[in-house]
């Protein structure tokens, strides 16, 4: 059964304090691993898709990496506006998108 586990559940950082979010997964035939940002009261906003181990993608202060078992979302020098829930999802041979529980990030000024 495809499964996604995210850690930590919640993370509080000071502005400028870099950290990483983890997404561990088991999937039959990885087609893609997705990172989303979700603000309260809104739908998930697409950040990255990673397709194979070793792949990395960057966008502003965010960098996503992928291994055969997990993905990391690195946040460098975060700002208060980076506060949100970050969701990880995988798509395997079933074609369905399976989501983790999310990590709620709070960045304090």
């Amino acid at each position, binding site marked *: 059964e495809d499964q996604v586990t995210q850690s930590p559940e919640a993370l509080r950082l000071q502005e400028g304090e870099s950290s990483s979010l983890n997404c561990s997964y088991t999937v039959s035939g990885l087609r*893609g691993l*997705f990172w*989303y940002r979700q603000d309260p*009261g*809104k*739908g*998930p*906003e*697409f950040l990255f*898709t990673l397709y194979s181990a070793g792949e990395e993608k960057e966008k502003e202060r965010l960098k996503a990496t992928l291994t055969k078992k997990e993905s990391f979302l690195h946040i460098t020098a975060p700002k208060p506006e980076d506060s949100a829930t970050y*969701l990880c*999802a995988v798509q395997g041979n079933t074609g*369905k*998108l399976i*989501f*983790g*529980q*999310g990590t709620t990030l709070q960045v304090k000024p």
Partner: protein
Amino acid sequence: SAVISQKPSRDICQRGTSLTIQCQVDSQVTMMFWYRQQPGQSLTLIATANQGSEATYESGFVIDKFPISRPNLTFSTLTVSNMSPEDSSIYLCSATDTYGYTFGSGTRLTVV
């Protein structure tokens, strides 16, 4: 990427009634999806809606409770039928495009 408009954005409904949620995409898409996000939880897939065929429901979700229509390649509706307080959730529409999966802003449903 595709832009998805979903309405209503929120509603408060009486138990036993039904609510239909509309999802409009600004481009033609092959597959559309409906998710439920219960308070404090992640997204759970309800069903996949393909144009010209019946929706495919996930385990735990049935057509009588969540009927779905997909009349064309840009539009879908989800009805939450005979509602109970346990149906209080955020319902999200999604579609695939070349960038991956795009989501609407969601419908926050409260059943009283």
